[in-house]
Structures are given as structure tokens and as C-alpha cells.
């Protein structure tokens, strides 16, 4: 399998850093996504995944909290030419379900674990 990040990636769903948890939950439900990319002043600040939502519930449910408070502020990104095996290694090493794809310092895509499973299912 010779697929690269650019073959697997999709456009990430973005939310503003000031968006409330209530708004984010609505987006995640309506768009059927398990994560959103948080943008602050035009630049990526972090990611909010279902794990972050579970953590919010565990610390007491406050849907007025905003994206920049809830987000995990480390983004793991690969380049467009990174191959599928390398992406799997990164996901396994960091225990993550998605990597972002970077080009010239900009986030241009997201590769999800489910996209890779779809390709493996074709083997």
C-alpha cells in the first residue's frame, strides 16, 4: 500500500477559539465528526476530541467553557508526502486517532484512523 497523507486527507472541521462547548458539541453531532480543529487569530491552536469531552464531563459539565480552554494544545502534524505506514506508527506511538497535514506552515488536511481502516479493508 503506497498511499500518502495527501491521498487520505480530508478537510478538518474548524471552530473559533471563543466557541462554547455547547456550540462545539452541536457541530460534532451535526457534522458527524469526533474532533474539531480550534483556530485562534487565524492560526491553529489545538484540537478538541471526544477524549477532551470526556475529561470535561469528569471535571464537571460546564457547557459555557470555550474552545481555547478545552482544547488539547498540541497538534501532531505530518507532511503531504508522509506514507500510510509512517502515519500508523505516529498514531500508535502517540495514542491518537488523527494527524493533521501541514503544508508551508498551514494545516491543509486531517487523516483519521478510520480512513486508514477503510483502506486496510480493501486488502
Amino acid at each position, binding site marked *: 500500500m503506497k498511499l500518502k497523507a495527501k491521498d487520505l486527507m480530508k478537510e478538518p472541521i474548524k471552530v473559533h477559539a471563543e466557541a462554547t462547548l*455547547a456550540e462545539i*458539541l*452541536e457541530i*460534532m*453531532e451535526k457534522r458527524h465528526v*469526533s474532533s474539531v480543529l480550534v483556530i485562534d487569530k487565524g492560526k491553529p491552536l489545538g484540537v478538541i476530541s*471526544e*477524549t477532551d*469531552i*470526556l*475529561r470535561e*464531563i*469528569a471535571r464537571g*459539565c460546564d*457547557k459555557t467553557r470555550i474552545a481555547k480552554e478545552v482544547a488539547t494544545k498540541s497538534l501532531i502534524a505530518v507532511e503531504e508526502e508522509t506514507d500510510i*505506514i509512517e502515519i*500508523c*506508527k505516529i*498514531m*500508535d506511538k502517540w*495514542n491518537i*486517532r488523527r494527524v493533521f497535514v501541514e503544508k508551508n506552515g498551514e494545516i491543509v488536511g486531517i487523516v483519521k*484512523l*478510520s480512513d*486508514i*481502516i*477503510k483502506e*486496510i*479493508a480493501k*486488502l
Partner: protein
Amino acid sequence: MLKDVKVKDVMKVGVITVSMEDNLVDVAKVLSKHRINGVGVVDENGSLEGVISDRDIIRAFSKGINLKKAKVKEFMAPIPITIDKDKSLEDAAKLMYSEGLHRLFVVEQEEIKPKSLSAKYRFKPVGIITSRDIVVELSRSC
């Protein structure tokens, strides 16, 4: 409030399972078809023995293992974490977070005619609750 909603009110009844002898490409097909991240693994009695997830598959894939020859029993996580159907969604969310999981199984203990003297009961998977179910419920309530 998530405290007031019980697991049994939200869980998906009926659990998609695979057998311990299936290979990892078979599992990828099941996960992809049903758009899920993991499935229960049952033995010949239908008793829940483990769980295999998309993470287990990509770990094997990244090591160059031939996934068509890789059997579920060699890669599954044994002893899945379960939750009582009468617990609240808040309990489920806390358990998922503390265990680093995205799914919990609900099982029922059933007596079986033993094929061996040691197996008198099976733990039949009857439901599953995922972090997705909690996100959806939370977006509507709380």
C-alpha cells in the same frame, strides 16, 4: 443531566462481534462497514472474551505484519471493561476517561451447558455504549 440518564437508555442493543479465529482484514471490513472503532470478540459459546479495535489493527499494520494471516486472538485486548446497564452516563464517561477507552460493553451472565467442567457461564454481550453516544447525549442535555 448525564447523571439522570442511564446506560440502558442510550446503549446500542446488540453487539457486533468477531471470532477469535478471524483475521485483521476481516475485522477492518466489519469496522469500516459499520463505521465503528472496535468490536467484541466472542468464543465458541458466544461469551465475551476480548475486544479488538482499529488501534490494534494499525499497530500490527505499522509493524509490517501480514494482516490476512493475523488472527484476532493474537492481537485482541483480553478482559473488556464492562458497565452495568443501570449506571448513569456520567459514570460511563468517567470510567471511559479513567481507563482511556471509547467504548464499554454491557454483558449478561448466562448459565450454559458446559463443554468443559470449567465453563458454566457465559458473559453474553447485550449492549455497547461509546464516547460518541455520550457526546450526542451531552449536546442535547446537560
